[in-house]
């Protein structure tokens, strides 16, 4: 089944997991809020699964979706 992703960010090898000492990769993640879910692709550590939400994403798209959901 083809996934619909609301957002995709490729770490392009610039991010390293400090715990596992390996590069983050584009991986599958999901945002959950007030009983709603949104599949996304974000930088994820292939070993420990750390999902990175960059500042611009948190203060931009994520915030606006939060606000929209809060008033549902």
């Amino acid at each position, binding site marked *: 089944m083809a996934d619909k992703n609301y957002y995709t960010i490729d770490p392009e090898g610039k*991010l*390293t997991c400090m715990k596992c000492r390996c590069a983050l990769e584009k991986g599958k993640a999901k945002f*959950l809020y007030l009983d709603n879910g949104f599949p996304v692709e974000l930088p994820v550590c292939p070993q420990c699964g750390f999902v990175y939400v960059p*500042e611009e994403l948190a203060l931009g798209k994520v915030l606006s979706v939060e606000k929209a959901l809060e008033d549902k």
Partner: protein
Amino acid sequence: MKIEERASTHVYRQKRMFTKEELEARERLCVHEQPPYCNAACPLKLDVKTMTAAIAGGDFDKALGLYEKITPFPHLLSAGCEAPCEGKCKLCSLGEGIAIRELERAAIAYGSRTRSRSLLRKKNTKIGIFGGDLFTLFLAGELAKKRYPVSLFCSQTDGDALAASCAPDFSEAVRTATARTLSNLDIEVFWNTDPSQAYRQHSCQFDLTAAAFSVARQLFPEIVPDEAVMVSREHHLITGPTQGVLGAAFGAKKAALSADRLAQHLDPSNTRGEEGSVETRLYTDLEGVLPSLRIAVSGPDSAKAEALRCIQCQCDVCIRGCAYLRHYQTFPRLLTREIYNNVSIIMGDHMMNKPINACSLCGQCSVLCPNGYDMGEICHIARQNMVTTGKMPLAPHEFALMDMLFSNEEAFLCRPQPGHQQCRYVFFPGCQAAAIAPATVRAAYLDLCRRLEGGIALILGCCGAICDWAGRYELYDQTAAFLDNALAQLGNPKIIAGCPTCKKELSSHPGLEIAGIWEILEQIGLPEKAHPPARPVALHDACGARGDPRTQRSIRTLAQKLGCHVVDTPYSGDQSPCCGYGGLTQYTNREVAKKMTEACLERSDLPYLSYCMACRDRFAREGRESMHLLELVYGTSADHCPDISAKRFNRLRLKQELLKEYWHEEVDTVQLGFTIRYAPGAEALMDERMILKSDVIAVLQHLRSTGEAIADADTGLCITRARLGNVTFWVKYQETEDGYLVFSAYSHRMNVVNRQ
């Protein structure tokens, strides 16, 4: 106590805010949309106010357009109208009312018609009118404008003769203009005919017939038409007696509406709506309006000048006072309806959540409004309703609610005065006082201990206003019970409140005696250190003291005793606006809160003297020299614009220091085991984003126990995160020898998880 996020957006619960009757009763109080006095008095419903506004702006064409809406014969009507509007003009109560008829004439003289062809299709119902008088002339015009095929039978020889017989007293110009208007209307006129005879011969050719009343009486001497609708049902005839020019014009209007009903085979009394002049409930504040006399209208300029005297009557007293209503460009009746509808939405977007949460619940409107409209109460009920149905998002209020829990848990203090089992008093300075001015709180407490007999206990905490404002009534009840319990342990002493809002909130607890510290100081006098400000000051009354004349008076007395030179400002006392903190506006809508603060400060250029610490803080943040009365009384200064972390730190440190110094209780402070420093700008950024230093500490502690972080090669910074309650906090940092250097922090409420 716990604060819970709403579980799901897919819970479809609903509860009505008001019954229909209650909603309507509330809405009725607002007279904003009631017609102005002049409009209401006009049976033809001329929009006088808009017309004068148009003339005042030099737009005579628009003014004429408005006037032509009410009559097919503007010259005739304006020449002869008895103008009941003029006597009702609000300005009559001050000086002379607006010369409305002169302005109508000016509109006709200086405006030009926009000849728009009627878009209406010609109707099928053929109407015959018998007899030429004022009533039938107006009626023919009204019906032609409605696009009925109209035939008029009259004894006069031509239009000039008809106009002359209708309006013998008017000028040649009026008569000529009237004849010209008639010839331009789509009316088939049969001159030189005997109307009664014509009726007998031709009435059967028409679907509807109308007649001058004199003709009707010739035809049917016993005729008694229903004057309310200008119809004789018995004779199937539209007719009726009228008096004067306005009477004829109004009779013709009623008759034309009856024609509409009859053409649809309905009873003429059917669904006519409100006709004629009405009683208006409008209220217009005349404060600041100077009496003036009429300006004789002799040309466009003098017409403009006369129109400019019109004060455009409307009720907007609450709007002028409230920055929130101005921000949303609305007025209470409309806003109430929108809020009511919003609350009734089961599924989908709730567009009014923001306005509901942006009102400061200050009650200023209820004082300003001539009918006591309390928009704040309605917003408060709406918030509670949303909490009940699970529709209230936590996000706008969570920070404030957590801050209240901090005040009543970690930073809470409740102790009798050392050496006293039972105390006669308890000092309750309020959470904001301890957060913003800890030194002042300390000085006040020591002073009270020194100068009052019977023991003074101390409670550092929040009165519960925060959760009350947020509409969290369960939390409020818990908080009230918690405080009642603390007070009971002290033996229910008399409360000395340091904040007017605390005084108000705690007054609602049954069985408690309460006074403001200002009232106590008024009795026991000022301490030695008290000193007046160097300059005159503007006194800002707290919205928490609305409806509390005792507090307002006492503050003024104290200020006077202090030697303050207090300058009066508009909207003082009960009418005072909110500083932007009340109702949690500061948290839910910074833009509106800022406008509220600015509106408060617009009243004077002087330094502001207040008696609520939140007001004091907000005014200082807007750059105004600002002082709390207790700062002057105790010669102590509040902190200058403490950030959110400092406000917490102040509360905690005050508690710890007082515990140590007066109750000799040691509080173990947790040693972090590492240091945190902040890069330039980081703390301001965190304050702006409502991220506390304690949040950053918790994230870094999480990092130390899990080692979870990433390194960003582009910036050379490390980034870590932790989920704390309903929020994920991210911290960008560099490791230092003994800890961390924090560059930035951000947060989001969404939870992020892995997915297969």
